[in-house]
């Protein structure tokens, strides 16, 4: 599948989904004017990707989802959770997944956000200081 790259702006994160390397990154600040509109291409890409994998493509290797978010608004939270749901589906397909949650030193809030999302999706995250 073609790589998905959505460039970063002052209010929306960079999205880089690379099916070849099995790396999926969400980086920056997330407070887009319309969160649904912003995240829709990413969710559609993941839907198509999982559909392809479920038809018998090679599922070997580790699928790494990396969040390097400094802030995300409440509207974005729903869609970040939707991305996590796709990774849950990957896991259920038998894929090895890894979720890395990056944080700045002293930012207990983004750490807590990560912990809450990890509990909500029931997948352990790796917490990594930037």
């Amino acid at each position, binding site marked *: 599948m073609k790589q998905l790259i959505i460039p970063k702006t002052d209010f929306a994160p960079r999205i880089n989904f690379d099916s070849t390397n099995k790396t999926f990154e969400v980086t920056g600040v997330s407070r887009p004017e319309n969160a649904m509109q912003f995240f829709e291409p990413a969710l559609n890409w993941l839907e198509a990707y999982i559909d392809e994998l479920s038809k018998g493509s090679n599922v070997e290797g580790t699928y790494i989802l990396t969040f390097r978010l400094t802030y995300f608004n409440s509207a974005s939270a729903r869609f970040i*959770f939707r991305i996590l749901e796709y990774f849950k589906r990957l896991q259920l397909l038998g894929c090895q997944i890894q979720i890395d949650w990056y944080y700045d030193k002293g930012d207990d809030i983004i750490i807590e956000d990560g912990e809450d999302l990890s509990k909500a999706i029931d997948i352990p995250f790796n917490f990594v200081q930037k």
Partner: protein
Amino acid sequence: MNQKEVVINFCGYLKYETIGDILSDLKEQISKYNLKVVIHKKIVTVTIESLENMYKYYLNVKDPRISNNSRPPIFMVEKTENEFLIHTGNTLFKKDVPVLVERLEIINNRTKDELKELYKNIITDGQFSMKGGAGLGFIEMAKMSGHKLDFYFEELDDDVSYFNLAVKITLN
């Protein structure tokens, strides 16, 4: 005497881009206080959620009965020795007040853990007793604050009220 200092004051209708401008100004103003990362983040989070609520709400109420009203939206941050107070004000239809009151009272009667649970329930399956995206924003503000959301309404005329909200971020 607990003196108050106005950190930033905005009055008027918001374009989406204005949110970024206000945020930049605010960050510049609060940089002189050498705040801990967590306090800074709380102020920024409440600011963004407040301004986005004001912006989204305005998009929903482009009605001459409101837009001709002389009371524009306001956003203000004040600082005292021990806390920051983030104030917002905007018009709304009087008929929408009871629903908003109920929503805010539900939030104000929740512990931090209960608010987290409520937040999680909404983002995972969208269930909440009220319609509209603003519910998550108020929950997020309450989580950041750790205090009750302080609100009151003023009747401007037969159809229109003004919603005043203050969110407290303590420094300790």
